[in-house]
């Protein structure tokens, strides 16, 4: 097992190298060149500025060197083992050894990539962490209910509704929700945008009653702002996972040990929740493991509609603006997380299922 683990871990290094070379090559060969992209997407041209800016960035980011040289320089900066300049004087000397990873500075935003990720990640995590438990709660309850009432009205009804939900694009639902549920002319139940109210800085943390009236407080205000994004983010996953649960529940419920459990005189609830549910969770766990990277990648549509600057927006912006440093860093991080979560899933299989073993 240990050898297997070590081999898998070591394999990550060349894979990452491959990923970075491919990404770098694609970016380097992007039409128009990198310097042009640096001028920004909404470049309202002002003649005298254009040239000065281009020249400055070509110099600053070394864009006038050949791409392989640029790549090696980038690799050296990112990798934890490499050359480090220990003396800034001329000619300067280099030292080979362990050093800090430096993800570089975003070209469009002129800020360290690590800072940018540090700002976007909490928002994405807040959104995903508040939606995931709800998604699983609703998926499991509806899935189990449908499986137990197989072919009856509940099952067919749930199936119809869930498939309808699954088919509706979230961009459309999001815009409809904003148009109707946040609009003073229809139902002004929820806030339109952002994570906090304008006045949230002056709020208490918990809800409170004061002579002026009920005050919702900071916690409730944030939760209130999260309702629409979470609903919009979750409904299609609920539909998908619910169907998945129903399928695997049905499969388990038809097996011999369930009949035995029933024959022992166990109540139907005990049979469903203690015996069947546990066994039908396996496919769900597999799906969850593979969604981990997707969670970190964020949800660009939701983030745009509801104005939450998370990882999804960061990633798409970096791609659209050909922001090489940011794009390379994000791709590398996503690739790393993906490989680690695959590894964890493989190990989990071995633990869960005695038939799987990695001993050579």
């Amino acid at each position: 097992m240990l050898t297997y683990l070590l081999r898998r871990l070591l394999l990550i290094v060349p894979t990452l190298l491959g990923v970075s070379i491919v990404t770098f090559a694609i970016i380097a060969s992007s039409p128009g060149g990198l310097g042009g992209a640096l001028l920004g997407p909404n470049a309202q041209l002002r003649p005298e500025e254009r040239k000065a800016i281009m020249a400055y960035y070509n110099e600053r980011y070394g864009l006038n060197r050949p791409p392989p040289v640029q790549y090696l320089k980038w690799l050296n900066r990112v990798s934890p083992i490499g050359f480090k300049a220990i003396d800034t004087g001329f000619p300067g000397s280099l030292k080979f050894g362990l050093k800090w990873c430096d993800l570089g500075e975003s070209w469009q935003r002129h800020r360290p990539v690590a800072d940018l990720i540090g700002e976007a990640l909490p928002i994405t995590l807040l959104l995903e962490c508040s939606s995931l438990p709800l998604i699983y709660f609703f998926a499991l309850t509806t899935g189990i209910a449908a499986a137990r009432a197989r072919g009856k009205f509940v099952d067919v009804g749930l199936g119809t509704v869930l498939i309808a939900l699954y088919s509706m694009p979230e961009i459309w639902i999001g815009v409809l929700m904003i148009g109707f549920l946040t609009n003073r002319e229809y139902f002004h139940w929820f806030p339109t945008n952002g994570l906090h109210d304008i006045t949230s800085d002056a709020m208490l943390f918990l809800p409170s009653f004061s002579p002026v009236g009920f005050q919702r407080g900071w916690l409730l205000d944030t939760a209130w702002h999260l309702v629409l994004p979470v609903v919009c983010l979750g409904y299609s996953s609920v539909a998908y996972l619910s169907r998945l649960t129903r399928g695997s529940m049905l499969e388990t419920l038809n097996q011999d040990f369930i009949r035995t459990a029933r024959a022992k005189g166990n109540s139907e609830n005990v049979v469903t929740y203690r015996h069947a549910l546990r066994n039908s969770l396996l496919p769900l766990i597999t799906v969850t493991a593979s969604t981990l990277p997707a969670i970190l990648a964020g949800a660009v549509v939701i983030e745009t509609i509801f104005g939450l600057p998370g990882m999804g927006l960061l990633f798409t912006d970096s791609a659209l603006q050909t922001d090489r440093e940011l794009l390379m860093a994000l791709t590398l991080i996503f690739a790393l997380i993906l490989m680690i979560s695959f590894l964890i899933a493989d190990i989990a299989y071995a633990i869960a299922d005695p038939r799987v073993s990695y001993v050579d």
Partner: protein
Amino acid sequence: MQNRFGFKDLVFLALFLVFIFVVFLEMKQIDRQWQILSELKDQSSTQTQLLASISRSIDTLSTSGIAPTTQSSNSGGVTLKNDPFFTPLKEAEAMPDFARGDYLVDNFQTKLGGILTPYINQDLYSYWVQAKIFDILITQDPNTLEYIPELARSFQASPDGLTFTFQLRHGVRFSDGVPLTADDVVFTYNFVQNPKINAPRTRSYLSKFKSVEKTAEDEVVFRMSEPYFNTLNVMTNLPIIPKHFYSKFGEEEINQNPGLVMGTGPYRMPDPKGWRPGQKVVLVRNQLYWGEPPAFDKLIYNEVEEEAAQETMFRNGELDIYRCTVPQFDRLSKDASVTSRATGYAIDSFLNGFYFIGWNEKRNGKDTIFADKRLRKALSLVTDRAGLCAQIYLNHAKPISGPLWIGSPQADPAIKPLPYDVEGGKKILADLGWIDRDNSGVLKNSQGTPLRFRLSYATGSEFVQRVVLFLKDNFAKAGVIMEPDPQPWSVINQLMEHRDFEAITLGWGGGDVESDLYQEYDSSQIADAGDNFISYSNPEFDKTVRQARQTMDRDARMKLWQQADRILFEDQPYTFLYSRQEVRFIDKRIHNVKRTMAELNVVDLWPNPIPWYVPKGMQKYTQP
């Protein structure tokens, strides 16, 4: 029995996780309160320091025998008599329902580019914020477009245009209470000229500056290496930054810290070094502001990109200013629920720039068909610009005759935009040998080559896409084949740099009251990837423009510019298409919104005081 992980454990675990999460949020909240507390502490300590310094100066005054009650306003005090800078605000204050208080809520229509630090910042919206936090030596009067002193008390330009002397106002303080001196102005200049500072944009404006010197505690002299007519305009792009604050940071720190903002303006960031992208931009009143304080307590900038969300927020009253697209503007102008509580403004302004088709006259060292000015004129004639403005911009754009804004003193008033004249255009084309020889509806020359060209344009704007299709239709009516060639912005840029295109449609941004026609049309700008990317060259034009740029006398210069304008009209290096209006709605609770020469009486990019206000009864954010 085996101890297994059961349902109860799951519930317990879930509750436990929720508990930890809530504790985490509580910690965040306490952190926030701690921040507010430390801000208050900072504020009170600056105020104590200020008090101490004031009492010290009172002491010195009384020991030197001067009564501290003496008015000092006529000896260069903070408020000058008839100070044109504060006139609009003073007029507002004289109105019967004028009141201070309430917030002004605006929206950046996209996420802020991420940097507010002056000179390092890049995108348009950060300049809006900058204009509220920082002051400049001189600015422009929105009503007259004249230069008026702001941080300067007065200024003189030498007749040869080589030296500019500014006397600073007394009593101006940065938002931390430290007084402004000539050292800060010199520091600002050196800051921008430091090549390690990531400020290539502003640095490019300063190419003709030689030095800045402090000649007295309150006087600075800017020296130029050659005279340039627009020097004062360059000055309006130089917000003065405090030496004691920015010199604490290293160059790389300044380049990378997005929120280093401290100035002398009427508003300030609550924390002059703590702002990070993603946080909403909320500017609070600078209690130590040296001048007349404007009405609003806070300026709040949302960052909502989604059109539906913007509109809903505006309908809900969550936005005071709504900058919309032209179709939205037209639709909402007919909606009684909107017009009852907001006023729509469609604004022509020199700030809006113009759009054009550029005809490439030289490609791979050889003249193209567009090198002939008669052909360019014919193509301009067959372009239906009035129809374009009406159909695509719903009359919120105007046809133009040249690169100068409509009504500019630089433009020759006798010139009117070319008419839409298909027959006239076809006649010129026929004279040039482009005739419909086989009744196919396509013009061909004697060799049978059809008149065809490719029009490159940047993707991303729905409007530009429609404009290009409209033009294609126009040209087709005259028998000219135009092939649309959409390209991403970076490719367009490369095409321009390599002069590797046939025709291109683009917009130049506006912003200057008096434009410099040198960069785009002077033949010296063809080489070295300059901005004359169409390789237009006319020695007479070059001579006129070069002379105009060095002429410091306004009237003489205007005559030269008008001549240059006539040459451009005659030569049609571009087919000048149209200049757009800026459309927006402003909530009716905001009073005293007026039209000025510049734009409205609040120009987002200018640091002039905001003369808008909300009467007491209509204020909604200030607690009673």
